[in-house]
């Protein structure tokens, strides 16, 4: 099927894109706004898309960059902080026996710094490799790893302060795509 026009790829990606927007904004209405703006921006910048690269990661990166630049205005953040008590849970209702732990994990996830939440979402929810997450967020792979370590400490209920003396080094396979 190579050489064929690929229609409706973006439509098929909408659930993934919305999920990422929801994780970043922690708010359904803001997520919808972010996704709408990202689709518009992607259209405006369509000539920067290199067809040899992953459409999914290109769109994830646009959402992320837009989120970061919007956050700089601080307006959205103030609104969010004001409404922290009304946070929409990020996911589906849990079964009863899971709900206590789940609620705790989700609450801690929602309180992570934006950049740690973004990394954990790409790795844990979207199943990206470290290399893919690094390309999507345009940061070195070591940054991905240290953000993940810090995020996991918080989710385990530990202090986010770095307690490890392990020096950061790149481990694992080198991913090419």
């Amino acid at each position: 099927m190579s050489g064929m026009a690929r229609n409706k790829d973006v439509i098929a990606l909408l659930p993934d894109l919305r999920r990422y927007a929801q994780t970043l904004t922690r708010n359904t209405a803001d997520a919808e706004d972010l996704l709408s703006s990202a689709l518009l921006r992607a259209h405006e910048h369509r000539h920067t898309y290199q067809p040899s690269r992953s459409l999914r990661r290109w769109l994830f990166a646009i959402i992320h960059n837009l989120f970061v630049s919007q956050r700089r205005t601080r307006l959205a953040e103030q609104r969010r902080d004001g409404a922290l008590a009304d946070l929409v849970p990020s996911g589906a209702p849990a079964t009863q026996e899971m709900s206590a732990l789940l609620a705790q994990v989700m609450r801690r996830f929602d309180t992570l710094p934006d950049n740690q939440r973004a990394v954990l979402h790409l790795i844990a929810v979207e199943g990206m490799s470290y290399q893919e997450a690094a390309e999507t967020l345009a940061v070195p792979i070591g940054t991905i790893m240290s953000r993940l370590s810090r995020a996991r400490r918080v989710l385990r209920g530990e202090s986010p302060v770095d307690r490890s003396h392990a020096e950061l080094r790149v481990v694992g396979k080198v991913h090419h795509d």
Partner: protein
Amino acid sequence: MTDPIGEIDLTAYVDGELDDERSAQVEAYLADNPACAAQVMRDLHIKRVLRLNIRGGTGGITTPEMMANARRLDRSLSGRSRGIPSLALMAALVVAAIVPLSVTRLGQDNAASAKPSYLDDAVRAHRAVVVRERMQSQPEAPRLDAEEILRTIRIRVPRLPDGWEVKDAQIMPSAQGPALLTSITTRDGADLFLFAVYASSTAPAEPIAIQHDGVNIAYWQEAHTSYAVIGDASVGELDRIADDLEDNDLV
């Protein structure tokens, strides 16, 4: 002499980012350090809980404006994507990122050898629909909304050749999740059933036609979706029909 195991190694282990050698070293270390092993299990658990919960969320509805924007972007990009790595390859890359690497490596080369398990679901769905069609009280649903199907169950419907008509389109259960079974009348008046489910399988990219469980069936996969065509036609004829469908654009 091996490097000491640090927190970064444990994190990379949780995410399947270590090669076999380093994974083995981490596992040996964990076997001797129950507290660290418990922490790794906790991290794995949290990772899965996050994934289940966030992926399971409804996450709002797609507004018409959103669809229009997505459609426009698709149109503006599809003109730029001819002659480049196929969507199937992209899907494979995404799958490779999700599936543990060892599994992906094993699965790559012998993809065409095994009969995919979804053929049984296709045959069962076909039987149910044949029964439906004989019943007065079970109305047919001849309107095939390809966009809604893509949006809800992620299945891409191949564009049908001119003169083919959809008689009925039903969502059917399958082991891989909701599947689509479309009953079609070809231009020559023959009955044909197209089964599709959003899942990778051992089906090849080029269709194969065989006899399976008493029916003639052709099957293939494309863009992370597995397809099967069932009909009264001969195996050879079905193979040709499946080739045509596979060559057509996905709607």
